[in-house]
């Protein structure tokens, strides 16, 4: 059985660059712009976007829950104890790199036979189920809020991910489980339910960042109350529900385009799912905005 290409060092490097102190030597090797410093990292990866599978795929848009358990189960299936932050992008990239390296250059020698087949199978499952299902969405949001360094990092990460999917988990008809069994889309029947869904990417089909809410306030001439996103969003809705829903509808429409761009090639099917979710959100919000306006 020939080994699919493994870019484990690249994955490992990209994981390391998602940390607060990117190694300048690694940045140099990848010809990335100079990293902007720890404060920018906090802005991008702590305050604005959240590089966790559970945040992107969970019904509540929060760390943990069923989406988190799904990733933890994968670790256990490998015979490993799930580490802290088991579904963090960097952790998963490290895991992916380790599996790839074990195939081609194990601790002492490359794996052979059944062990190698098992490693390849695990790597394919990881990239398809636990990375392809949400990472492009996260990368798209990073591109929107990050500095040139983060944008370049997001771009190359997306490229590598696409390449790895192509190499070891060729496109298939079925969706990743997390998407196939995804929670229902946005529902505006209740304001609380609507807000919950808007802040859960898998339901809204988009990532609403703090920066988005600040921008919405600015565009609509509303006061932006400082706090976590739910608090800020509700404060905006309190001031102009129709305007805010309409603004978010347009954001969702923009995300349709983003999904198409960030899910190129072998990720096309996944991208279509996300685009459909965003498109549905845009439609629902537009209708809700109109209703509110009326």
């Amino acid at each position, binding site marked *: 059985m020939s080994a699919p*290409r493994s*870019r484990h060092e*690249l994955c*490992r490097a990209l994981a390391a660059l998602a940390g607060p102190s990117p190694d300048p030597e690694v940045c140099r*090797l*990848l010809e990335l712009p100079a990293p902007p410093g720890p404060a920018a990292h906090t802005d991008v990866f702590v305050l604005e976007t959240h590089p966790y599978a559970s945040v992107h795929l969970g019904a509540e848009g929060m760390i943990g829950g069923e989406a988190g358990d799904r990733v933890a189960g994968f670790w256990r299936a490998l015979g490993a104890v799930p580490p802290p932050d088991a579904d963090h992008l960097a952790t998963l990239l490290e895991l992916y790199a380790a599996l790839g390296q074990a195939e081609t250059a194990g601790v002492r020698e490359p794996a052979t036979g059944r062990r190698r087949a098992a490693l390849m199978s695990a790597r394919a499952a990881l990239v398809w189920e636990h990375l392809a299902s949400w990472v492009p969405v996260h990368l798209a949001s990073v591109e929107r809020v990050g500095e040139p360094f983060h*944008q*370049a990092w997001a771009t190359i990460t997306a*490229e590598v991910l696409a*390449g790895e999917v192509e190499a070891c988990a060729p496109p298939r008809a079925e969706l990743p489980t997390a998407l196939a069994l995804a929670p229902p889309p946005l529902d505006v029947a209740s304001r609380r339910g609507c807000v919950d869904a808007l802040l859960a990417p898998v339901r809204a089909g988009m990532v609403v960042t703090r920066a988005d809410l600040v921008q919405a306030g600015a565009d609509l001439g509303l006061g932006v109350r400082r706090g976590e996103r739910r608090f800020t969003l509700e404060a905006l809705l309190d001031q102009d529900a129709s305007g805010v829903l309409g603004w978010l509808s347009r954001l969702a429409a923009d995300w349709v385009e983003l999904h198409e761009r960030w899910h190129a090639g072998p990720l096309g099917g996944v991208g279509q799912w996300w685009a459909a979710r965003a498109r549905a959100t845009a439609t629902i919000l537009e209708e809700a905005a109109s209703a509110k306006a009326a």
Partner: protein
Amino acid sequence: MRLDRFVRWTRTDGGNRQAQLDELEASLRAARATAERGGPSYPGPSGSPLSAFPPAERWDDWVELDSRSWPERKERHYLLVPTTCFNCESACGLLAYVDRETLTIRKLEGNPDHPGSRGRNCAKGPATVNQVTDPDRVRHPLRRVGPRGSGKWERVSWDEALDDLAARIRRAIEEDRRNEIMVHIGRPGEDGYTERVLASWGVDGHNSHTNICSSGGRTGYQFWMGIDRPSPDHAHAKVIYLISSHLETGHYFNPHAQRIVEAKANGAKVIVLDTRLSNTATHADYWLSPVPGSEAAINLAICRHLLTTGAYDAAFVRRWWNWEEYLTACRPDLPVTFDAFEHALCETYDRFTFEYASAESGIDAATLAAVADVVAQAGSRFSAHNWRSAAAGNLGGWQVSRTLFMISALLGAVATEGGTFPNAWNKFVPRPIHVPPHPEVWNELTWPLEYPLAQNELSFLLPQFLKDGRGRLEVYFTRVYNPVWTNPDGMSWVEVLTDESLVGCHAALTPTWNETAYFADYVLPVGHAPERHDTHSYEQYDGQWIGFRQPVLREARRRLGENLDDTRQANPGEVWEENELWIELSWRIDPDGSLGIRRFHESKAQPGTKLTVEEYYGWMFEHSVPGLPEAAAAEGRTPLDYMRRHGAFEIAHHVGARHEEPVPDDELVAPAVMGFGRVYTQAPPAPAANIVPTGAPAPDPEGRRPVGVVVDGEEVVRRGFPTPSGRLEFYSSTLAAWGWPEHALPGYIRSHVHPESLAPDEMVLISTFRLPTQIHTRSANSKWLDELAHTNPVWIHPADAARVGAADPGTRGDRRPLATGDLVRVETAIGHFVAKAWVTEGIRPGVVACSHHMGRWRPEGQTGGQNLAMSTVALDHDGGNWSMRVGKGPQPYTSSDPDTARLWWTEIGVHQNLTFPVHPDPISGMHCWHQAVRVRRAAPGDAAGDVAVDTAKSRAVYAEWLAMTRGATDVSPDGTRRPRWLMRPLKPSAAASALPATALAANAALTGTADDEQ
């Protein structure tokens, strides 16, 4: 700007994008490999970490900033050419930085492609550049003018020198005086090349330095496993046990030291037995400072502990020890069962309690017990080494390594991960293009009848044998060797080397001036590490590799398109490499091929023409190094080009327990299973690419060769060990049969310097240790090494310093203790030397120590010599009474190297070896270095470095030790001179190995066979 690239990527086609990602992956992998070697980054043009190495793909044009041009950022372009260090036997990889502009060697660093040294070197490797650029080195062939030793020289051509030597050698061969030709090897570094040259001449003229070096250690290993060197897998050991004054941190084995450090980092415990606080001891978890010579008693106490606590690997012992043979031969009272053997084993070693070992060694029993417990916990991850030190210092020192290996053999730590391997399994000597047969003569000047079990040539007895009238030498080569200085009893060497009736012609093949070269007829310059071709392999871990030494300027010029056909064209002056020299000399000895010599130095590709080094190594690498042709092809190179490029090749990694390997069926033709499971076959041996020397057990009476052994009643035949029994020989039938039945088992022989043998005012002098940054002779012209270490004071404990001071009031009459820097006279059996004292608690009371390497000298009037670390001495004698008084020490001087004007040291130590009589161990033949000495304050007028010797006394000591032997004439069980299975560099034919007629008659009379014949 960076984003542009990614934008571009997203717009390119998929294939191109993937290729770009692959490039990034490759650079990251390379960076990780570099980073894992550690170290800070180098900010210059190479951009690589300081502790890492230039990547091989950039070795043709490596750029660095010229440090001397600072602050100007001037780039220097280098060709990086690998070679192998020639300063000690470890054969570490070097990388020569050849300036592309000047075609000179600017520096030498480690070769990262070398599996043994892995790019790391001790100080001696980089200092090779000092030796290359030494302003005092010998650059042209020289011939003496006036009497030998008078110190005047004239330059001659290589042709003149070789013609003279060739004529002498040819005449000796034609007149059947083959034993008058001898090559005495110092630093071999060439895995048998010279042996094969001598074999091609049909002479048994190989002489080595080994009996002043490692014969004792080798003997102990050889009797156990048929292979005379250990290969400890230190890196994976749990417990590392070293009987060593210098081994792991000094002259030898930087490759071992780095692996010991790795093991320590992984939690391994290090136990060091060394009377002196050596560098190795400072890194030990347990430093034991025993009474010199008691080491075997300690080893046996540990063995007893393993036996009595059941902490030994009984399955391994039952499987691989020759216990059945032992019981049959020595304990007919017992049944031949393993239970009975275990009982006998415990009984045999029962007297070696910790209390007994404590009484012998002076180390308290509780400490010995604690150490034994640590050893017991090692299991099969017990790596151990003894090379010189105690094995080289003491009468019976060979039992030190033998008892040490017994610990390994009890633990089953033989050829295991973290254990100790036979070296031949971790070493590869490629079969060369020609393998001449062994000679038809036996040279008694090197292998005398008195020492049938000597592990190596009795090299240090040569002057005594010549004085005995046992023979003479027509042509005597000292080849990278300095016996006057390195051997004991150097003045006896001077006496015979200056006697032209004993030594007709002495040619010193040497890269540097040395004390022996002063007494030569020709001084012929041969190359240092970057000036010669050799292959070399060494046991350093569980694997096999070969290193390639090459003249780096010749290779650099080849890369630049210039093909030289003679290494002299690239070397300084007329410095030559030995390969070409020996080929040329052999052709001159036998120009028409009538002597049958020339054919071994001819081309195979073009018969009748002279063999070139290109063909020699090209053939070897193509035909005799498994895997190398394939590796070379993968790079699009020839095997020779691969070695020129990389400098080393790893043939095998994880060789494993070769003794357990089944013998293939096709090797078992009409197999016969003889006593104790030894299996013989009629199948001829398969031609082996690896001709590493091992023991060669004799065929059975039917002429079948031993091929393996049946163990534990298995169906399969295992490869076993190259011993007569095929097993590890706890019991040596060889020792028993050849006159030493009392030492047929590992045991403890009290040293000639045992406390009971010393007079009350005598102490033991340890002289076997070296300074870590010096080599015997050739480092004296290395300015960096001389600056690091240039003197050898006498280590003395404060208690002894007080005692000596009190006993000898000296000139001040105050009976104060000796202080560091005070001059002392150290009196041996044949003379004395004067040196400065170093008062230190790093030495055991009752013992003094003085390193060799130091005390280089040049007689007044001698125009040869070097100036960095040599004193000019007044060398006088009245008959055998010699005195050497130090005159002018080293001083700054002007030369082509401006550093010589900055020479700041004035003391260079003492040449103590001159004052040592010969002490040949009657079994191993090893010179037993330890001396019983008296230490006093220096006399008025004494100067540091002064020496006095009476060679008549040295003759008397020689006679005393000779009387301890049991000669082959008396003990040979089969009419041969020496057990045929034992290792020997050249193995004369069976006819030549038979006792001479007169000895045979005597032997027959002694053994009672004469009556039968009548």
